[in-house]
């Protein structure tokens, strides 16, 4: 590998229309780079179309862990004209464009080649993406043998033959260009090759399995559907009942029925579907029936931008459902947290007999990153279920607000669950004193829940604090790494509701607070305001895309300049 082109990370953008096989390049390259000893990250954004439209996948390759998207593109492979113009703003003089001369005008480095024509020459235009993958792989100085190995695992017979040919063509193109156009040093420890490579979706799915999920009932809705299909695919391995509901209302209610019978159910949805689950949240609240909801956000209102990302439903998650009742909202920041928090959601729902929402978004759901191998805690889920006795009362008053939960058919007592205000036994009542007792009992659980809140991850010692939540975790982290300012500290929330005083101590001490949210109105900042925490500057983005680490670092730098 040559010295002068050596760098720490490279970003590769692949563009094309739906159906052109961008996903297979993504698989090939991310697997390949990982095997070659690099850290890799990929994220996609796409139009709401089954075919056509302009879609891009960004792949980052790095010597160091990399977990966030960047705006700037080092290598761009547009498989069609539309995607070129769509991503034009991301191209700079430094960008290496792989395209046919004359197709596009750009002030960049053009590597003139007609990849689709080459693909056609070996019999099929569909292997354009394989040629492009091999070319990119070679440009980064990687051994084509690795891709051949992967292709052999993915394809058979004629398809394999054709793909192997395509790899040779792509590798030759790279060699013609002197290889190593953008060489990066591999990670010497080699540890990264052994890492898991997971999307947020897969993290949630595995976490749900670890949490004892044995029933999923959902109505499909982007970008949440990935978890539904993931668990459907795994249903035989882990004995999970899978049912597609007629609507989100039924999805939630069927889950409630399953929990009432002692099962562990989840429903998956996005904002529009979750809006229909509001009454279900409320029912879970008063009946104290546990429930887990995976809410993958996309921009609203209404249909909004169906395939894009936003952190716009935090308030919906916190305030959905009529009446007053406790709930928990968790917002993972990466695939590992997706695993941990999806698992935890089942424990929390069962323990406190409340609805728990795991709040993700399209960006996190569809992005892949390295997850260092970890030992899964082998502790079986604790079912907080009691065998009922003859005098069992479902809503017996207790000091901490938790009444032991029985299930029908298990023990000698009856389990009466009522959406009306009810007596300890579970029968309808309009007694005001009983109302006060039962409402008080339910709301009392908030204290226990707050004590269980996850303390946010913090970094740095400075008194200017950058605060974020959920999917922006690594984007903020990388943005701050670029800035390298010792006056800055950062704090990131994965447990976003209810907030406890322990979680807020860093913010209480801060001189200046800058919040970063992927929405238009600063919903988390508003919640912090309710806790008398004043946010000085908000950095917001709501165009349907996630923040980019390079973009965000500039924005933060600009804010710092202003406040100093």
């Amino acid at each position: 590998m040559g010295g002068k082109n050596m760098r720490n990370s490279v970003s590769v953008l692949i563009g094309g229309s739906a159906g052109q096989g961008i996903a297979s390049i993504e698989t090939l390259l991310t697997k390949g780079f990982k095997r070659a000893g690099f850290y890799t990250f990929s994220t996609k954004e796409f139009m709401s179309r089954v075919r056509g439209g302009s879609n891009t996948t960004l792949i980052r390759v790095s010597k160091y862990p990399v977990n966030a998207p960047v705006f700037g593109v080092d290598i761009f492979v547009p498989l069609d004209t539309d995607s070129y113009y769509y991503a034009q703003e991301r191209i700079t003089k430094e960008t290496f464009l792989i395209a046919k001369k004359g197709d596009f005008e750009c002030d960049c480095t053009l590597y003139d080649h007609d990849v689709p024509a080459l693909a056609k020459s070996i019999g099929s235009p569909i292997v354009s993406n394989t040629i492009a993958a091999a070319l990119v792989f070679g440009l980064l100085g990687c051994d084509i043998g690795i891709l051949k190995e992967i292709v052999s695992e993915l394809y058979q017979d004629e398809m394999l033959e054709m793909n192997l040919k395509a790899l040779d063509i792509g590798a030759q193109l790279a060699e013609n260009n002197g290889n190593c156009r953008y060489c990066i040093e591999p990670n010497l420890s080699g540890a990264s090759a052994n890492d898991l490579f997971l999307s947020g979706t897969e993290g949630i799915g595995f976490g749900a399995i670890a949490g004892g999920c044995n029933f999923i009932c959902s109505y499909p809705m982007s970008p949440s559907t990935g978890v539904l299909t993931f668990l459907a695919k795994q249903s035989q391995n882990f004995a999970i009942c899978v049912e597609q509901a007629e609507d989100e209302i039924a999805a939630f209610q069927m889950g409630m029925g399953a929990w009432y019978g002692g099962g562990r159910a989840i429903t998956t949805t996005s904002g529009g579907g979750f809006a229909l689950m509001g009454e279900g949240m409320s029912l879970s609240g008063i009946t104290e029936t546990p429930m887990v909801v995976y809410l993958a956000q996309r921009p609203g209102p209404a249909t909004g931008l169906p395939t894009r990302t936003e952190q716009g439903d935090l308030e919906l998650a916190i305030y959905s459902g009529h009446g007053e009742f406790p709930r928990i909202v968790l917002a993972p920041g990466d695939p590992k947290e997706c695993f941990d928090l999806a698992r935890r959601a089942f424990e929390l729902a069962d323990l406190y007999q409340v609805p728990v929402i795991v709040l993700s978004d399209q960006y996190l759901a569809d992005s892949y990153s390295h997850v260092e191998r970890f030992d899964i805690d082998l502790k079986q889920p604790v079912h907080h279920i009691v065998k009922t006795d003859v005098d069992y009362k479902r809503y017996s008053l207790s000091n901490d607000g938790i009444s032991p939960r029985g299930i029908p058919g298990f023990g000698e007592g009856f389990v009466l669950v009522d959406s009306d205000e009810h007596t300890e036994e579970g029968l309808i009542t309009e007694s005001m004193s009983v109302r006060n007792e039962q409402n008080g009992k339910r709301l009392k659980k908030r204290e226990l829940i707050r004590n269980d809140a996850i303390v946010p991850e913090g970094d740095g010692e400075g008194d200017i604090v950058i605060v974020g939540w959920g999917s922006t975790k690594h984007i903020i982290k990388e943005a701050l790494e670029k800035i390298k300012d010792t006056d800055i500290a950062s704090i990131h929330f994965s447990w976003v509701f209810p907030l406890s005083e322990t979680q807020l101590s860093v913010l209480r001490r801060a001189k200046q607070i800058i919040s970063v949210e992927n929405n238009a109105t600063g919903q988390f900042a508003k919640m912090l305001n309710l806790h008398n925490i004043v946010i000085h500057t908000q950095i917001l983005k709501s165009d349907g895309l996630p923040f980019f680490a390079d973009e965000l670092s500039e924005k933060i730098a600009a804010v710092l300049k202003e406040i100093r």
Partner: protein
Amino acid sequence: MTTRFDRIVEDNAWCPGCGNFSILAHLKEALDEMGLDPLQSVVVSGIGQAAKTPQYMRVNMFNGLHGRALPVAQGLKVSNPSLTVIAEGGDGDMYGEGGNHFMSAIRRNADIINIVHNNMVYGLTKGQASPTSQRGFKTPVQTEGVHVEPFNPIATAISLDASLVIRTFSGNKEHCKAMLKIAIEHKGYVLIDIFQPCVTFNKTNTFKWFKDNVYVLPENYDPSDKVKAFEKALESHPFSIGVIYKSPPKMTLEEILRVESRMDETPLYSHQVNFHALNDEMNKYS
């Protein structure tokens, strides 16, 4: 008559003379006479006067939201197939607010008994039209009379090939009880639509009106003939009562989901996580 399903109730919310009292009595007797265990029986209901039925029974109860009894009942049955699960409510609850769930529940065929108290009027909200109100029926809202076609639950259920479709009348004790027993005995989804007078808000479809407008299906009637059953379903004034349609045997939802996921018959609460398989599976994602 006392049954093992009796609960001592101090405050019943139904009007004196309400058809709900008869249905409650017939149901408790049917369950008792069939030897069912109250502890292993669950009545899931929604909102409305009919949906209060489980409040007055000695039975497990999930008294949930308006229109939502069926999805809860199905989730419960999947969760623990050994329970006897009844989803009970009125015509507004099951056919109006829960209409979409009604159609899907028929198609899913969980082994549940769907009891619908059909009095052709809204009681709890004080006398507005229900989905089954007859054309011309005047109410404080439908001041000029109902101008929409009444919902035909029997025809709808047959068109979706419901496992068992029954109509009966609360005022015919023997018939109603016998039909409830057939419904309880049956494996698969059962619709049992029970005509019932509302003494307070429906002065048109009175006890006498129902009595004059129903007839018992003859003994030689064959409920397995789907086309004939559909013809019966479209008849009105008089309406037939009895087992109107019975589909060929089919698998239940809880059976299908267990076969599909290679799960045993045990209730979900007894299941454990296979961490060994989880480790293996996650290793594939490297």
